[in-house]
């Protein structure tokens, strides 16, 4: 596990997967890559109330294409594709009950699976690259939150 301190909260990141800039973990599962929210994302969202996708799988998506949206106790957000590729499956159980995102973010709380070219996969970061990315964006993240509270 790698760690990143979000204020007093310690976010944990498994070292057996890779990471996307939009705060998703990526874990190979056969031919596909499974994606889910990292501890960083979940800490910002807190309790997830609602998750919705804009289309059905399978679908071809481009990098940063709008996929759907999420609503939590504290926040709402649009969700975007971490990579270009073939989105093969959304985690259907989350649609009725998204609580697994909070309870088991690196397991049952996975979001979707994709097949992507090796080239596209090179955008994914190693755990240590992701943690240093977090250090870089932490200030901006705080300001984003703070800016919206004003």
């Amino acid at each position, binding site marked *: 596990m790698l760690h990143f*301190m*979000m*204020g*007093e*909260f310690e976010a944990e990141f498994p070292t057996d997967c890779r990471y996307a*800039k*939009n*705060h998703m973990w990526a874990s190979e599962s056969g031919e596909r890559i499974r994606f889910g929210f990292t501890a960083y*994302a979940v800490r*910002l*969202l*807190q309790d997830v109330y609602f998750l919705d996708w804009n289309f059905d799988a399978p679908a071809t998506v481009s990098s*940063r294409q709008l996929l759907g949206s999420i*609503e*939590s106790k*504290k*926040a*709402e*957000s*649009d*969700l*975007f*594709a*971490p990579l270009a590729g073939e989105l093969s499956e959304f985690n259907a159980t989350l649609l009725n009950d998204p609580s697994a995102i909070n309870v088991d973010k690196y397991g049952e709380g996975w979001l979707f699976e994709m097949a992507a070219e090796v080239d596209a996969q090179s955008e994914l970061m190693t755990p240590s690259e992701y943690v240093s990315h977090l250090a870089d*964006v932490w*200030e*901006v*993240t*705080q*300001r*984003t*939150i*703070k800016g*919206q*509270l*004003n």
Partner: protein
Amino acid sequence: MARRISAVVSQGQSHNPRKRELEEELVTLLMMEPGIDAAVIPNLYDVKPDGTSALALQGVSGDVIVFSWLYERAARWTLDRLDVRGAEGVSTINAELDEDEEGDSEAGDSADEEKKSRVADDRPVPKRRIYCLELSAFESAAEFMVEVRRIQKELTTSVVSLGGLDDWVSPTAKPSPESLERFANPTNDTALGSNGTLQHAEGSNGFHASNGAAEPAVDVIRIDESADRRWYPVIDFGRCTNCMECIDFCLFGVYGIDGAETILVEQPDNCRKGCPACSRVCPENAIIFPQHKSPAIAGAPAEVGTLKIDLSRLFGAPDAVEQAARERDEQLVLAGRETVGLTVGIPKRQEENATESKDELDDLIDGLDELDI
């Protein structure tokens, strides 16, 4: 009855029959309303600074109500651009929204940053009031007339309190309605106006009706100057801090600097039609494109529907600067020039770090609870 008030109807750009009908219905009612001098001009935003409409607007020194299809803030600062200035008349049409918005932002400002100085802070405005009403607020003209009468009443009341009648008349001996009326609407031409300047009697502080000043105007002044559609930024100087990020970003020479080193839209017609990029890079959201489809860019009040934080930016949405650079590149290509991407005039906002102590995250997020959703 109040002092005479000028009412200006700015026609929409489109020939949407429903809109035209509302405009005409309103003009008719305004024309018949006592104390109102009515005029019709082409779309305020399209008006040229040296055209007939602009000259007519500049000629009005008294209180004005401007009806347009623009958002209130867009209309106000478009008028400012045309040298038509005055104190902000607050309309009850948008009052609820405005109060919420201002309440929030003031609380935030005072709590965590010293007040930034805005360009408008150093610009005195005449005391007369300008009310900008959004024609999209109501479906029928009659509803607007309710607001017009409220404004007439408000202006009469404020004249009395400013003029100090109730200071020198004892509370038990109230001035008669007739003397109040004479005070509010003097019949001699040496009376002092509410701003202390010599003011001529009826009509002379508004549009000059063709049938003479002695009779209430029953005509409507119609200005049919040809108004080609224009596209240019309008700066809200109530928000602008003169940071110069817009002039750095725009590569089409729209912005300039005046004698006092204040930003201005110097060459509005250099602006690329449809491109709102500078508005996206403005850190104060002070640049309005009144005809843009996105309400935030067209000058709408801050969205009040949602009180949750929007994390889209953190989860991969293109940020405003990226989008602005993309839009600017599209325009550079259209103009036969080389694209520059993110290499030119990109705001330095990220550098000026508001350093926060790291333990504040919890407080910040929990602060949302106190908003009492």
